[in-house]
């Protein structure tokens, strides 16, 4: 069973390159668009599912390289809302792969705590199946106290959906009177995004030669350094990542200067919002700025609390589902003992004895066998 945390020794050229690069500025936050899994599978005359498995392996290696480089935050575009348009088979395969990998995360909680890895899920979780949604919530809650490095997985995510959700929250708050129209600033909108707890990515890498963002972190990557490389995602090597970091270092000062200009612009919006709060307003009292700050803090706290409640509710749901699964497993074992369920499946070259009551689950079981074999 593959782990999320891979440790490998570096060859001396890799080690030397790492040490040289670490002299310069290292991006704190790296965003990855993992494109090219299906083309990789096609090149190697394999099924699409194998391409995605190879893609996951590469992700684990990239996380290890980032830890060696000192990159503390990585955001990865795992599943777009647009990907749901793919064939039902492929979508189910992707979701089952995700479910399997989250199950591994839940089993290696201690290892993740030891390395200080915090996993966050960004995206519209309502679009995911119930079990996967519950698993993501459990993973987030389990790793929330780890603070050394952060992995943000974009599942059922598009940037437009994210911005729309933030706009919706703000607009509803205004209509309900919890916020005023003048309270809306770019910083407030950013605090309503799924990535509110993260800083903006410094470097965005997209593989497979495509040169577009495909609705990924559009707001957050406005001033990021974009790096497009032709290599397919499963074929990505440490040298490609080092090359991207080197490219970032060459333009680091320009990126920082552009970010400073943006900060000045955002500060201006905050000032305008403060000035728009009239001291004669009975709600404001004598200090309009303070009143606005209180309103905004209450709104954000309310939003965070709602999201927390959702996570806890999903976590409870996961425990119930697991309990039900365990009970049904015990029942099946009893049934097998009584000889009522027989072998019905094969997986590759192995003959597998599987107690599966419902034949429609056979394919899912086969995929699981394949994952465990890898």
């Amino acid at each position, binding site marked *: 069973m593959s782990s999320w945390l891979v440790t490998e020794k570096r060859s*001396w050229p890799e080690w030397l390159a790492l040490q040289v690069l670490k002299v310069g500025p290292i991006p704190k936050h790296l965003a990855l668009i993992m494109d090219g899994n299906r083309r990789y599978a096609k090149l190697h005359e394999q099924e699409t599912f194998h391409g995605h498995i190879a893609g996951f392996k590469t992700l684990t290696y990239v996380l290890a390289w980032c830890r060696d480089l000192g990159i503390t935050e990585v955001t990865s575009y795992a599943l777009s*809302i647009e990907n749901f348009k793919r064939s039902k088979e492929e979508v189910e395969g992707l979701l089952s792969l995700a479910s399997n990998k989250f199950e591994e995360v839940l089993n290696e909680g201690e290892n993740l705590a030891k390395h200080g890895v915090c996993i966050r899920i960004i995206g519209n979780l309502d679009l995911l199946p119930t079990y996967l949604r519950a698993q993501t919530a459990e993973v987030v809650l389990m790793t929330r106290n780890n603070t050394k490095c952060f992995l943000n997985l974009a599942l059922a995510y598009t940037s437009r959906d994210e911005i729309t959700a933030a706009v919706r929250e703000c607009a509803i708050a205004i209509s309900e009177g919890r916020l005023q129209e003048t309270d*809306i600033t770019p910083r407030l909108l950013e605090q309503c995004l799924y990535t509110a707890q993260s800083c903006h990515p410094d470097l965005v890498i997209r593989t497979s030669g495509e040169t577009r963002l495909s609705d990924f972190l559009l707001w957050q990557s406005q001033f990021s350094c*974009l790096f497009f490389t032709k290599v397919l995602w499963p074929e990505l090597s440490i040298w490609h990542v080092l090359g991207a970091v080197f490219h970032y270092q*060459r333009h680091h000062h*320009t990126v920082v200067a552009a970010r400073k200009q943006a900060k000045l612009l955002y500060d201006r919006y905050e000032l305008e919002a403060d000035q728009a709060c009239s001291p004669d307003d009975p709600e404001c009292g004598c200090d309009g700025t303070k009143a606005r700050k209180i309103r905004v803090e209450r709104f954000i706290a309310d939003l965070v609390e709602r999201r927390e409640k959702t996570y806890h509710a999903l976590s409870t749901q996961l425990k119930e589902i697991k309990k039900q699964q365990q009970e049904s497993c015990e029942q099946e074992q009893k049934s097998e003992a009584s000889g009522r369920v027989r072998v019905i499946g094969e997986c590759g070259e192995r003959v597998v004895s599987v107690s599966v009551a419902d034949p429609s689950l056979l394919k899912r079981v086969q995929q699981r066998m394949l994952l465990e074999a890898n």
Partner: protein
Amino acid sequence: MLTSLSDVKAHKTVQRLLAYFRMDLLLPVFQLLYFVAHFLVSVLQAVYGTYMDVLQITHFLYQKLTHTVHAQEQYNEGKGKLPEHPAVVFLPGHYLAAQLPQLVSLMTAFVKAGAKQITLYDPAGKIEEQQDELLLCLTRSLPGSLFLLLQHPLEQINEEPQKEQAHARSLVKGATAQTPVVYVSIVNCDSGVRHLLNCVRKLARQPHSSLTNLSPHDLDSVLAVRQVSNIECHDEMSNYCSEETSRLVSNPSCNERYLKNPRRCAQSAVSCSFVEQKSLSCMHLVRQQDPDMMIVIGDYMSSGGFPPWGLRLTEFAQTSSLGRIDSAELQNLFRSYAGIEKRFGR
């Protein structure tokens, strides 16, 4: 990854060296190597400047040989799609006022390739200061086209943009139903943010039930609306004469800016009908399409603060300066764009 015994031995040797020399003594060596690497790449870029830029453009342009040939065939047969809405983004410090003629020639090339809308993004706002001159030069280079400037939207949405376009054409002397209309949008880093904030405030006035079901498509239909105002159109350029100048200056309907700058009036070959039309403001709304292609003028690839909502599927290209994009490079860009396969998530 260590794959052989010699690698393992080499690794052990390195570890022993580290322990012997101490890491802090090796740090200056790494620093030196770091600066040497950056210096070498800078020298390469200075000596082979075009080479480095062409590499970057070629990286965007280069596909597998069969794909490139296919794109060429599609382009030649006119089947490949050309960008209808290209955007040109200038990263800070990469646009000078003196580069206006180069910008005009680039935009002319886009229009000739079939672009219906062009967006220019300049965080410093220099293009916005030159917008009149830009439109004037565009009309001089393409007298058969009608250029309309897009600005921030109004509250009311116009349901019949084509009717308004026809109305705009009717106001312009010499324009016919076949006169192509090209929208020009000049954006700065404030535009996208302020527009989004205004949309949030506008949405907050809607009923609560419609807000809870707000989808990206709904937000897109609010954000994408733009106002067209101040029709900038020029008739065929005629030779300027002193009588014409005095007539313009004395005409009360002349734009105040031109009155204050008679030298500009004298130098620009503008007929009186243009000045009369310039004072008209045709307020109608059109739906702005997302940019198909974005050419970033700067040292690295970045959207540079361009309003993010429209960049969902925009293809990026990058070059270090405006002057480096000649007609051959542009043809390569279009050829490559024609061959791009957009999967839309599938």
